């Protein structure tokens, strides 16, 4: 019962966890230092709790979360792979964790070397040698990519307004296009799940700035026409942008740069093990080709002739400028760099091969259920695959949502549901390379059991889950009457 109280509903006036250090300096009348007219009248009504209360509150809350360290989390397009524990240890070293971002580069050589090395590695993995680590997330990397594209065209005296995105694209793609002041033009998907090349050819006009693509795409399908696609896009002078969400399928196997892409963003929180943190932090470095490189964000890390590293502000160059404060999410760089050094070239390739193997194995195990949950496109997949729950809905009377909710009762996090949008009742499943065969076997058995159960009594799944801290929540009501902060009553005001 007490678990559903918020921290603002706990505690008592006067309780505290913090003890201020002694003042130590001669006390001056505080109102002489900060006049009343600039001061706040009442302190903010923050919680008043002791440390034990604080700890118990947030530890108990944490137990109301499902997490990757506890169970299978095949959330498609999110690459929920294991987060190595070493990374937390090295990121916490004071030389990394307590390094001030305004520290002079001379006294931050280790950090700059780490960032330089990470840039080199990402450049090699993507086949695009010029890297900026600055973007804070994949969506931020996309914004960087489109602003770079604009700068490139503008520098050539061209005003291009359109960006082509496939209808399978992640929602951030079109949203970013708008933020970059450009217009979305959708490109159709062909019967194999790839880009409809004829539709692309028709839409690739001289006012197109860029094509944004994920390959393998969100259907888990590698678009074998990529060379032709690149030729069409480059033929009209546009750039080719690679959404790196699905890089986990191809590390060491093929490279966006070799496919003809000009710009790629990485999600360090997907392929490179930055923990997802319950929805952030992430990190979205980008790598670009020679022709885009002059416009990269500043500051840039440079290596001087004596082997030392520096930050180049490139004040007079054609850089698009900054996209955020300081140098990026360094804490994420430490973790991803540790990962790359742990695995090396061979290990990274093995990760991708195993990710694809695991996905295809799970697809095969679920193949027996194809009558109700068919594969949406193709026969094999890359690192993820999309099933359609449409026949299940029709014949067993349970929707993809019901299947997802029932999975929760079996201690499994559901796959991504209702995405990509062009598959009816979609289930996007990405097991990742770090899961065991036994886990995959068990998942397939659970799905089979839920379908059998639904054949007997669909109500069970329709009302699931049963074993979770709360059951299905009224989301419509929450949106209609938004209650997005705790109403704090006046009782806690001092008398």
């Amino acid at each position: 019962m007490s678990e559903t109280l918020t921290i603002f509903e706990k505690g008592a006036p006067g309780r505290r966890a913090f003890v201020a250090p002694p003042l130590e300096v001669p006390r001056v009348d505080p109102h002489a230092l900060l006049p009343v007219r600039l001061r706040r009248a009442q302190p903010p009504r923050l919680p008043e709790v002791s440390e034990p209360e604080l700890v118990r509150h947030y530890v108990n809350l944490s137990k109301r979360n499902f997490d990757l360290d506890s169970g299978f989390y095949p959330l498609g397009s999110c690459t929920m792979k294991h987060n190595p524990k070493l990374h937390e240890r090295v990121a916490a070293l004071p030389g990394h964790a307590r390094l001030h971002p305004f520290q002079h580069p001379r006294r931050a050589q280790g950090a700059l070397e780490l960032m330089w090395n990470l840039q080199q590695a990402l450049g090699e993995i993507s086949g695009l040698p010029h890297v900026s680590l600055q973007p804070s997330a994949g969506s931020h990397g996309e914004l960087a990519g489109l602003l770079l594209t604009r700068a490139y065209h503008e520098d050539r005296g061209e005003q291009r307004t359109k960006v082509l995105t496939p209808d399978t694209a992640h929602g951030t793609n079109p949203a970013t296009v708008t933020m970059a002041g450009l217009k979305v033009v959708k490109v159709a998907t062909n019967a194999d799940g790839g880009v409809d090349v004829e539709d692309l050819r028709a839409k690739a006009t001289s006012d197109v700035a860029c094509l944004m693509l994920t390959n393998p795409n969100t259907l888990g399908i590698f678009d074998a026409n990529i060379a032709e696609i690149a030729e069409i896009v480059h033929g009209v002078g546009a750039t080719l942008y690679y959404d790196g969400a699905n890089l986990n399928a191809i590390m060491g196997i093929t490279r966006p740069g070799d496919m003809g892409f000009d710009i790629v963003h990485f999600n360090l929180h997907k392929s490179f093990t930055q923990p997802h943190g319950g929805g952030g932090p992430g990190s979205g470095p980008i790598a670009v080709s020679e022709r885009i490189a002059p416009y990269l964000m500043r500051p840039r890390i440079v290596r001087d002739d004596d082997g030392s590293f520096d930050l180049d502000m490139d004040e007079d160059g054609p850089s698009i400028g900054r996209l955020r404060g300081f140098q990026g999410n360094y804490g994420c760089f430490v973790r991803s760099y540790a990962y790359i050094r742990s695995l090396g070239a061979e290990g990274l390739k093995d990760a991708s091969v195993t990710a694809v193997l695991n996905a295809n194995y799970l697809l095969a195990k679920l193949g027996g259920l194809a009558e109700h949950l068919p594969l949406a496109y193709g026969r094999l997949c890359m690192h993820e695959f999309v099933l359609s729950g449409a026949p299940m809905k029709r014949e067993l009377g349970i929707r993809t949502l019901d299947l997802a909710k029932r999975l929760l009762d079996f201690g499994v996090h559901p796959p991504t549901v209702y995405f990509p949008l062009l598959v009816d009742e979609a289930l996007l499943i990405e097991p990742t390379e770090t899961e065991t065969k036994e886990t995959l076997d068990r998942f397939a058995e659970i799905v089979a059991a839920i379908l059998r159960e639904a054949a007997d009594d669909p109500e069970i799944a329709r009302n699931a889950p049963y074993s979770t801290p709360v059951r299905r929540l009224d989301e419509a009501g929450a949106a209609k009457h938004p209650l997005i902060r705790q109403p704090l009553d006046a009782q806690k005001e001092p008398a």
Partner: protein
Amino acid sequence: MTVYTAATDADRDAMLAAIGVADVEELFAAIPAGLRLDRALDLPAGMAEQDVYAHLRELASRNVSCEDEVSFLGGGMYDHYVPAVIDMLMSRSEYLTPYTPYQPEVSQGNLQVMFEYQTAICELTGLPVSNASVYEGPSALASAAYLAKLANGRGRYVISAGVHPHARETLRTYAHGFGVEVVEVGLRDGVTDPDAWAAAIDGETSAVLLQQPNFYGAVEDVAALAAAAGESDAEDRPVVIASYDPIALGLLAPPGACGVDVCVGEGQPLGNRLDFGGPSFGFFAATEAHMRRMPGRIAGETVDMDGKRGFVLTLQTREQHIRREKATSNICTAQALNALGGVVYLSWLGRQGLVELGELLLQRTHYAREALCALDGVEPLHEQVVVREFAVRLVGVDVEAVVERCAEEGVNPGLALPDERALLVAITEQRSRTDIDRLVEVLGRVLAAEREAASVEVGA
């Protein structure tokens, strides 16, 4: 098999047989041969865990952190004490390893933390609406500017030169994309020049943007600057956007009481590590009128089918996964883990603690400013009220050289501002009187030596 994968040779054989292919190569058949990388990636070989640790430790040892010197660096990120309870909670796998709470039934912890965080930010800012956090401070300011464009569609931003240079530059980068002009208003006596500010605002102004305290540590008269944009209830008033230092909000009048429409800021000072600049979080709060234009995730309270209290992501029709090109922002996730650190920190400090911390910083900052300005060749860059950071001009010396000399003695005296021939000095509760006295002593000595060297050079 590598350390983080589990497929043995026997597993692989069984899995390939189940798939119905002879080898893994077949799984990659869709990738044309001409596009295949026909060599190994040119990367160093993998290493054992202990060797990776040693390598990362060696890199860390070549950084001078706030643990290695007495540091007065600030300028947007501050070396506040991070309580142990935050390390413990942020490293719990239940917070560290899940993703965005797409399945609210098994994400109640996370969602309730977001709700509590939003409540704390609303309390701090005096504004009724907060999202669950965005990337970090400067991009939060640019995102707020985009909100203003969505709100009124006008073509110009007016920004104070007192806003952090990184935030001003980030705004320019973003605004070039969505086609809004940026006009900068200079400072007078260390604060935004009120006359130039008022003169710059007109019917084409989409938003006015300022920072409190400003980059040079000076406390701005936010209420007056906001009023210069128009009556707060006037429909045609530009959106008033202010970036705040959250620690200063224990003392300073909340933006909600000063006519600010959107308050953003860098969340790092609230219980987050320096981490050489990130990850941290940006907070983002606004008036009711802008609720449906907010970027990012927002958690809301609701009930489950049994009538039990619960929390969900809400107002999602703003967001990219629903609205796509019509979304109010492209932002996908929040900085959930960092925002957790933020709300735990504010709860740890508590209602009185935030005020006590603010008063302590106010007193120690005053002490340090007085002591430094008593040195030969040091004068205040401005005479404005300061709460936790201030700028001093170093007369007749190369500021960067002075910083270097001090650093050699284990005292980092602050951020060199070469254009202003000034030093930006930040005080946290971790800088004791002894530390401040040492700064005064070292800086005094270095300045004297620099002046002497300069006069010798001139003499020669």
